[in-house]
């Protein structure tokens, strides 16, 4: 479904503010992954620079989720190199821990912890992983909750919030760990149309602040407005990548064209 309208109604985002540096944030080289005998990711090469906002799209089952889950070591890759902020992903637990504390992740289904309040959700990892004193962690959490515009919900439980609010809490929760990179896996696709906007707004704001972002999404309006690169994946491979304008107006590959017609067309 086309959401260009949605974002078009907004004041234009100031792209010039979003700077991309020369430092590498994520480097993926010749990465391959199998599920059993099924080859999900094939020879992925991708370099993400600090401050980049990358949108990944592609048909269902093309391996988008798997790719970003590999970056976070939620899935193990079997071949090739993944380097996050200079740390090479290996089976060493310390390194995995290091990478995870630098990479924030938001899921399609929010995955908030339903037995903890919003505030506890946000302070949990800082307290237990970063060993931040509770007080500090709570102040921090309130800061980010204010940023995603729900400071007043801090003492509620996730189940008492709407989907959009939950997703924003999930973003705030990740931010509390002060990640250098944020990964989003279809953050809006489980949301009712009314709520998509509030989440996208939050993400746009984040982008404006210069956060490095990798985002799997089909919100093409968001891609046009925020992304500095759009990556199209199919059958486990990166088929095409380009700046959004180019990508949408002049898709090179046939598969991309087909996909864009499906997703924008109906």
């Amino acid at each position: 479904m086309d959401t260009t309208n949605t974002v078009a109604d907004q004041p234009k985002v100031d792209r010039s503010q979003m700077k991309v540096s020369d430092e590498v944030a994520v480097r993926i080289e010749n990465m391959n992954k199998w599920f059993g005998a099924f080859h999900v990711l094939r020879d992925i090469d991708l370099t993400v620079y600090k401050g980049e906002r990358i949108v990944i799209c592609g048909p269902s089952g093309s391996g988008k989720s798997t790719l970003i889950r590999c970056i976070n070591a939620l899935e193990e890759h079997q071949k090739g190199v993944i380097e996050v902020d200079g740390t090479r992903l290996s089976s060493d637990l310390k390194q995995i821990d290091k990478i995870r504390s630098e990479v924030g992740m938001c899921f399609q289904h929010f995955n908030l912890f339903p037995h903890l309040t919003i505030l506890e959700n946000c302070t949990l990892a800082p307290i237990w992983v970063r060993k931040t004193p509770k007080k500090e962690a709570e102040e921090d959490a309130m800061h980010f909750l204010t940023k995603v515009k729900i400071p007043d919900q801090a003492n509620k439980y996730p189940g008492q919030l709407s989907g959009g609010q939950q997703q924003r809490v999930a973003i705030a929760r990740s931010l509390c760990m002060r990640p250098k990179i944020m990964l989003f896996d279809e953050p809006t696709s489980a949301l009712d149309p009314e709520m998509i906007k509030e989440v996208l707004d939050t993400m746009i704001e984040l982008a404006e602040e210069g956060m490095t972002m990798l985002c799997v999404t089909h919100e093409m309006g968001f891609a046009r407005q925020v992304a500095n690169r759009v990556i199209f994946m199919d059958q486990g491979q990166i088929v095409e990548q380009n700046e959004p304008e180019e990508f949408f107006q002049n898709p090179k590959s046939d598969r991309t064209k087909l996909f864009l017609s499906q997703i924008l067309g109906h």
Partner: protein
Amino acid sequence: MSDTHAQSVAYVRESFVEQQTPPVSETGVVKWLRENLFSSIPYAILTLLSLFVLYQILSGVLPWLLGGNWTASSIRECRELVEGAGGCFAVLTERWNQLLFGFSYPSTEYWRPALAFLLLFVCVAPVLFPDLPSKSLILTLLYPFVAYWLLWGGTIVTPIVGLLGVAAGYVAYRATINRGFALSLLAGVVAAVIVWYLGGFVAEELSGVAALMPVESRDMGGFMLNMILGTVCVSLSLPFGILLALGRQSRLPIIKIICITFIEFIRGVPLITLLFVANVVLAYFLPPGTTFDLILRVIIMITMFASAYIAEVIRGGLAALPRGQYEAADSLGLDYAQAMRLIILPQALKISIPGIVNVAVGLFKDTTLVSIISMFDVVGMIRGPILASTDWNGVYWELYGFAALLFFVTCYGISQYSQWLERKLATDHR
């Protein structure tokens, strides 16, 4: 547009209809009877049939219940008094204490188990009713120590030392928690053991302080024994059950195999064979000279039994958690122990409470099996000393009926609670 019916289109309601009461068609008793008892001919027949059965049962039981005798001192005297119609409930009054406390618990001390029993309700409430303030969980934590002191007697220093040990362990654990879970757990255990060890001497020194008359384990009996076995074994089996469930979910094949073997083995054999083991063969497997109490051996076996079942319940709870919870925990950088403790187990346990309660009820009922290995729980009391005595030899219905009633009241209460909880969890899963 040509394809519409002009007359039916473009309608706007001006006046709104308010709520009206439903038509008063057929309300009252007649309607209820017709809908619920005689809705069709087969149902009518069934209704009449069950009324007949009900009448038969009541006409048999009621005179027996109402015409019963509560005061005679022996079966002969009772039989003369009731003249064949009523029951000899006198056995209950006369052996009341034995049925509840067994025959060797000192009769001057009956208030102790009674008090412990009452306290049980107060102290379990914080666990059972999620709405109570979580501070009241402290009561629950204190309860084992208080109950131990009340039931077994001896100086109060012993349970206090026990409590201090736990507290010391906890403090040590908290103090070192930043060094990793395994290490801090070890620190906690070491601290607790040190306190217990030192406290042991203190307790010996102060054995007279606030001392209650000590009672041996083997003097526990009657319904009290069922209660003790039930509560002790269920509480002990919870931590083991959790460990087994986690082990069974583990990706490490050897640990998984060990846990599966244990669980399936225990679940595959009847409890009675495990009790035989406790009673008959366990002694062979312990170092020569250790003679520990039958009740302790039985507690070990029943705990093993219950842990296997509870592990299965908790495994269900773990499986019911969406994978996203594990992943979210991972992606926040929590390690395995933290993820389990902070995220997974609190939720899985909450889901599992109804299942755990069911296991607990089943287990509590199964504690009657100890009567088969010559322990005098309430059934053992009936089958042994009471029915064997010259006075009450031959009073079956009253005694078994009483035992059945005791269990029914307890278990029905618990299972109603668990249903209530299930409904509550179903509606407010936040």
